[in-house]
């Protein structure tokens, strides 16, 4: 009995005093989006103990924050529209002028962005596109159409994976129908709902974190996916091809934001400065295979990545569309369509 008390006491000591580093940094990040080496480098450089939890969609990040995780994390990496929503919800802290010494490294076109004018809460992380990837062994026809997901050829039925991501699925479906986002026209919304309801029987799964794995392993022949993740999938299974559909595809930019009530605010700012250094931004890009928003990174990239087909849309591809932020009444209609799809 005495022994077990001693063991417990030792455990408690270990838990409470386990951290040897001077400071801490708590990151809430997308899965598989930053190399461990880079986190280790930051930890060594600033003598900080870095912990990271992961999420798999912008909406999951929002749900966690609204569900009581405020004050637990220092930084997160929401996509463009989610930065705007989180700022409106009061979940983001403001970065004062001069707090980031590398702010000047942000590429000029990404400084004054609509979702965070003047970059008050965020810095660019990576940007890329969302569309889908097809296993060419399973289908050899034309893949540059969103019909591959929403009105698939018979031989692909039941072999399709869709991202578990409300914003991206509904926006891509709107592109397929050619309707604008954030419409409150009920006929158009019903058409959108019908499209998804009719497509659902053809879908095998709603998986985001395993989006690469289901394609590589052959579990899915078509899978909605992000361009860089698809490039990683192709390196494991050469018959995978990313599509830039003629109807359009989604563009996005993920951003490192300073969260409200960050327990280690100073370290969070150090981390943001760290990620704005071209060398480190390039390390993320090499790992995740998207595109950085920091000047001076492109020169540091490998030739293979620069030429990757996922990063270089064909000349006739339309420009990517960003997910729009709707007002509450409209968003509730879209939420109803998504709930109806998932149930």
């Amino acid at each position: 009995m005495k022994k077990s008390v001693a063991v417990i006491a030792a455990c408690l000591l270990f838990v409470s005093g386990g951290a040897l580093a001077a400071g801490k940094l708590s990151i809430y990040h997308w899965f598989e989006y930053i190399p461990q080496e880079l986190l280790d480098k930051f930890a060594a450089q600033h003598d900080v103990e870095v912990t990271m939890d992961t999420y798999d969609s912008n909406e999951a990040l929002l749900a966690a924050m609204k569900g009581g995780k405020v004050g637990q994390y220092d930084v997160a990496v929401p996509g463009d529209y989610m930065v705007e929503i989180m700022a409106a919800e009061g979940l983001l802290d403001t970065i004062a002028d001069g707090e980031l010494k590398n702010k000047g490294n942000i590429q000029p076109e990404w400084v004054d962005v609509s979702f965070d004018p003047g970059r008050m809460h965020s810095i660019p992380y990576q940007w890329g596109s969302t569309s889908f990837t097809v296993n060419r062994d399973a289908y050899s026809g034309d893949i540059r159409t969103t019909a591959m997901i929403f009105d698939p050829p018979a031989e692909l039925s039941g072999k399709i994976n869709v991202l578990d991501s409300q914003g991206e699925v509904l926006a891509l479906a709107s592109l397929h129908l050619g309707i604008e986002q954030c419409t409150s026209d009920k006929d158009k919304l019903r058409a959108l709902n019908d499209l998804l309801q009719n497509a659902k029987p053809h879908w095998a799964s709603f998986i985001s974190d395993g989006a690469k794995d289901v394609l590589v392993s052959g579990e899915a022949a078509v899978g909605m996916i992000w361009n860089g993740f698809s490039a990683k999938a192709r390196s494991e299974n050469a018959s995978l091809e990313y599509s830039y559909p003629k109807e359009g595809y989604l563009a996005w930019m993920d951003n490192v934001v300073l969260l409200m009530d960050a327990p280690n605010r100073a370290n969070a700012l150090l981390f943001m400065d760290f990620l704005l250094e071209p060398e480190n931004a390039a390390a993320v890009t090499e790992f995740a295979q998207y595109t950085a928003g920091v000047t001076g990174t492109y020169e540091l990239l490998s030739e293979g990545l620069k030429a990757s087909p996922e990063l270089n849309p064909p000349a006739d591809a339309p420009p990517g569309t960003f997910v729009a932020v709707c007002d509450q009444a409209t968003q509730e209609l879209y939420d109803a369509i998504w709930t109806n799809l998932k149930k």
Partner: protein
Amino acid sequence: MNKSLKDIRHYFGFLPITILCLTLLYGPLIIVMIYSFNDSQSITIWGGFSLRWYEDVFFGLEAPKFKKAAFNSFSIALMAATTATTVATCAAIAMVRGGQFRGKGITFGLINLPIMVPEIVTAVATLIFFSTIGFKAGYATILVAHIAFCIPFAYLPISARLQGIDESYEEAAVDLYATRLQAFFQVLMPLMLPGIISGFLLAFVISLDDFIITNFVKGAGVETLPTAIFGAVKQGIKPNIMAISTLLLFLSIVIVTFSYLINKSGEKQ
């Protein structure tokens, strides 16, 4: 006579079903074990025998993450099982030695409530509870939740053991002027020990095993082995996960063997 007795007991087809049952139980585990020694980046193509994935588990890039998760898992399981076993031992003495009393049935139901409520419901209720009272999710929330649902698992073997111990032991001790504390620690507890150890081991394994409640109540940066493994598996089954699985499989075998030996020595007494 002996042969006919055997014939009466014997049912045709039961042996094949038993073998089928064991094959079903062990097949997947053994295959994962075999593939954990696979010297190939791809998980399905056999590339020769190697221990590289075990090396990866202990020294690879993800090693710190899994080590931390393992530390959390084992320290939580140790503390939760110790607390639950202590609480359950007290409860077992009261229930088995306390005579008939009003509310005995309700108390029994209460102690066993965590077994009867589906885990997902306990998980949701605990999450809402901590969020309502404003308790910050983290290591402590996992520990508290684990203590609560480990109590019945510790209670059942302990009370079963106590029911088999005659009351005259502690009565004799008290008659010989032992205090109740002495009667417990020097007489009853040694007799109950096999039950207490079984209860502790069961609670320990149940805590180590838990995924769904932990997943709901864990806070920033706190992972246990199951949540860490689940997170990794969602992105695809990798060979290092198979190596971790095999290690945990061996740990289970060690624990079962240990608990068997304890029970055997208990029977002899």
